[in-house]
C-alpha cells in the first residue's frame, strides 16, 4: 500500500505545491522540537530546582528588560517562554496524536463492522454515533472533564476520544458502503474468501484514504480543542502546560503589557494548526477521487 501511495502522483504533486511543503516542513520541525525538547530547550521548565521566581515576567531578550538567557522572555513563574513552548508543544502534539490514533482505530473498527455487516449492529453503532455527534466532541469533553476527579493528559485524551471516534466511524462506514459495492469485493467473495480476509485485505485498504485526510484535519482540531479545554480550566494539569494552558495563563497579562506570554505560544499554536491545515488541504484535494482522476 505504501508503495502504491508513493508511486502515485501524490509525491509529484506534493513537490509542486508550495503551501503543502511549507505546512509539512513546519509540522516536521515542530514534531522534531517536541521530541527533542529536553535537549533543545535552554532550560527544563519543569525542573523545579532550576526555575527561579526572581526571573519571572521578563521581557524577550531584545527588549530593555530582557535577558539573553530567556530569548522569548519568561512567564509569571520565571520559566522561559521558549523552553515552555517546546515542552508545551510536546503535550499538545502528544494529546493530538494520541487522540487521533486511538479514536481513528476505534472509529475504523466500528465503522467497518457497521458498514460491512449492516443490520442491527450497524443501526446500533450509528444511533450511538448520532447521539454522540449531536453533542459534539467539545461539549462531551468539557462535561466529562468537568466531572473527572483528577485530570491528567490521559484523561483529556480519553475524554476527547469518547466522542472522537464518531467521525471516523461515519467516514469509514461511508466509504465501506461504497467500496463493498465494487465488483472486486464480489469477486473476492466468489473466490470463496472468508469475511475476515475480505474485510482486511480488500475492503479496508480501499476504504482508508478518506480517513487519512480526516486524521490530518482532526489533528489540528484536537490540538485546538485541548487548548480550549485548558482555557476553560478542564484541560491538562498545570504541571504539564500545553500551548493552550500557556495562553490562558498569559491572557491575564496582556493588558499588563506582557504580551509575550500570549503572543509566542499563540503564534506557535496558530502556526501548528495552519501547517496541519495546509498539509491536509493538499491531502484532501489529492485524495478526492473526482479531482485525482485528472491524472
Amino acid at each position, binding site marked *: 500500500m505504501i508503495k502504491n501511495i508513493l508511486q502515485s502522483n501524490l509525491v509529484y504533486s506534493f513537490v509542486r505545491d508550495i503551501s503543502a511543503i511549507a505546512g509539512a516542513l513546519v509540522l516536521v520541525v515542530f514534531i522534531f522540537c517536541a521530541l527533542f525538547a529536553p535537549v533543545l530547550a535552554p532550560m527544563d521548565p519543569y525542573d*523545579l530546582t532550576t526555575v527561579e*521566581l526572581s526571573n519571572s515576567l521578563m521581557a524577550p531578550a531584545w527588549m530593555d528588560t530582557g535577558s539573553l538567557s530567556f530569548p522569548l522572555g519568561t512567564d509569571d513563574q520565571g520559566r522561559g517562554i521558549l523552553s515552555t513552548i517546546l515542552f508545551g508543544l510536546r503535550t499538545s502534539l502528544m494529546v493530538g496524536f494520541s487522540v487521533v490514533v486511538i479514536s481513528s482505530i476505534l472509529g475504523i473498527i466500528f465503522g467497518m463492522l457497521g458498514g460491512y455487516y449492516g443490520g442491527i449492529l450497524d443501526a446500533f453503532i450509528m444511533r450511538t454515533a448520532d447521539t454522540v455527534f449531536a453533542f459534539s466532541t467539545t461539549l462531551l469533553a468539557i462535561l466529562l472533564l468537568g466531572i473527572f476527579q483528577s485530570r491528567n493528559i490521559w484523561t483529556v485524551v480519553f475524554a476527547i476520544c469518547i466522542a472522537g471516534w464518531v467521525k471516523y466511524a461515519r467516514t469509514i462506514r461511508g466509504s465501506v458502503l461504497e467500496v463493498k459495492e465494487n465488483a472486486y469485493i464480489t469477486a473476492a467473495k466468489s473466490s470463496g474468501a472468508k469475511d475476515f480476509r475480505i474485510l482486511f485485505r480488500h475492503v479496508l485498504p480501499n476504504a482508508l484514504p478518506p480517513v487519512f485526510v480526516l486524521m490530518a484535519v482532526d489533528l489540528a482540531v484536537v490540538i485546538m480543542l485541548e487548548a480550549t479545554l485548558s482555557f476553560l*480550566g478542564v484541560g491538562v494539569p498545570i504541571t504539564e502546560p500545553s500551548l493552550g494552558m500557556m495562553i490562558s495563563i498569559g491572557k491575564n*497579562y496582556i493588558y499588563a503589557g506582557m504580551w509575550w506570554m500570549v503572543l509566542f505560544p499563540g503564534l506557535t499554536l496558530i502556526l501548528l494548526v495552519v501547517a496541519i491545515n495546509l498539509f491536509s488541504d493538499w491531502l484532501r484535494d489529492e485524495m478526492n477521487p473526482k479531482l485525482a482522476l485528472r491524472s
Partner: protein
Amino acid sequence: KSDLVIAVDSPPKSMNPHSYNSDANLSYMANFFDGLLQRPAPEGRLAPALAIEWTRKDALTWEFKLRKGVKFHNGNPFTAEDVKFTFERMKDPEFSKFLNIANSIASIETPDDFTVVFTTEKPVPWFAETMHQNFIVDKESSLKRDSGDYNTKPIGTGAYKFVEWVKGSYIRMEANPDYWEGAPVFKTVEIKPITEDSTRFAAIATRQAHILSGVPIPMIELIKKNPAIEVVSRPARRAIYMDIGNKPGTPFADVRVRKAIAMAINEDEIVSTVMRGQATPAAQVPDTATIGYDPELKRLPYDPEQSKALLKEAGYENGFEITIAGPNDRYVNDKQICEAVARYLARIGLKVTLDVKPKSIFFDELSSNKHDFYLIGWMDGSYDFGRSAQLLLHTVDPDKGMGVYNGAMYSDPKLDEMIAASSAILDREERKAALQAINKKSVEDIAWIPLHYQQDVYAVSKAANVIFTPRPDMWIVAKEIKR
C-alpha cells in the same frame, strides 16, 4: 443607567441570605438585609444594627434588644418574631447553610416584641461575633412564598431594595428611603459579576463600571498608570497558609521536618513576585482583628541551609516524596503560590509532586483527608480564634464537629485540651490570653505554615466621584460608599 456600577469577581448564587456562607454571596446580601449587628468599614468592629444592645447573660444565654420602628421592604414591621423565625429557619438544611450556628442554639425566647434571648447547647463564646452575617428575614412573607421566589427575590430591612436580578448579567437595587440609618447616597446601584479576569479589567478600562473589586494582580501596575483610575487596597483578613499534619509514620510526624519545610519557603519572594507586593507575610493564621491574635509571634526565617540541616538531623538527608495540593481557582494566585512552594521544597532536596485542582474537587478531597500538605486560606467570620481552632487544629472528630477542616489530620492532645477549655471562658481578656496560648503553641509546633495575608485590591474610577472604603471582609456594602 445606574448611579453606581460595581463589577465584582463572583456572581451571587442565591438571594436567600442563608443559602450560602461565602463572603462573595454575603456581600450581596448585606445590601438587602441587616443582621442583628454589623461590622462597618474600615475596621469591622462589631456595631449595633437591628439590635441596639446585646449581653451574654451566662455561658449559654445571650440577650439582644431590638431596634424599634424598622420596616421590611414589603412594609411589614420588624419584630422579635422575625428574629426567632430566622434562626429557626436556619436549622433547615433546605434553606440554610448556617447549620453550624443554628444548631448550636437550644432555644429562642421572645419576652417581648423587641427582646430576644438565645440559649445555646454548649458555650459558644463567639455567638455575638457572628451576628453580622446572620441576616434577618421577614417571617410573614417568607412563609408565604415558595422557595423559588424566596431564593431569588430578597425582602429584608437593608439600605437597598431589590429591583432585578438578571442571572449572569447584573443585580439592580434602589435606595430604601425609609432606611433606619437614613437613605443611602446612591439612588440606584448595579452590581455586575464578571468572572473572567481580563474582561473584568476591560470593564473598568472602558468605564463600564465605577468600582472594581478583585483587581487581577497582573493588572495592578497597569491600573496605577491609568490617570482615570485609582487603586484602593487594604490588607485582607484572610491568611493563606500551608496546612501540614503530623500523622505518625509519615515524615511530617517529626517536628524538625515540619520546621525544615517552613524555613525553606521564601515568603518575601512570593510576596514580591507572585503577589506583586499585594500581600503581607504572616506569622500566624488569625489576623489582627481576631481575638487570639498574638503580636509577639514571629515568622521563622527563610534559611534553606538550616532546612537541609534539619532534614539531615531528622534522617531525611536524601529527601522524601511530598505532594503539594491546593485549589487553583479559590485564592489570589493560589496555583502560582503552590508552584513556588514546590520549587522551594525541591531546592532542599524533596521530591515534589504538584496536585492543584478546581476548588470543588479539592475541598471534596480535603474532607476525606486525602492530603498531608496543602495550600488553603482562612478567615474567620466570627473574629474569634476559638472557633477557628476547633475547626482547624483540633483532632479530627466528626461526631463532635471538631477538626472539620483539619484536612491534614494534625493532632495534639494537649492542644485539644486547651481548645476545649477555652470555650467555657467568658471573660474577654481571659479568653484572649487562652486563645493566644493556643495560637502560639500551634505556631511553635508547626501545626501549619502561615504564608501571608492577602491584600484586597479595588479599582475606582475617578470620574465617578465616589469615596470607597474597603472593608476587611471584602463585602461591598453600597450604603457605605459615599460621594
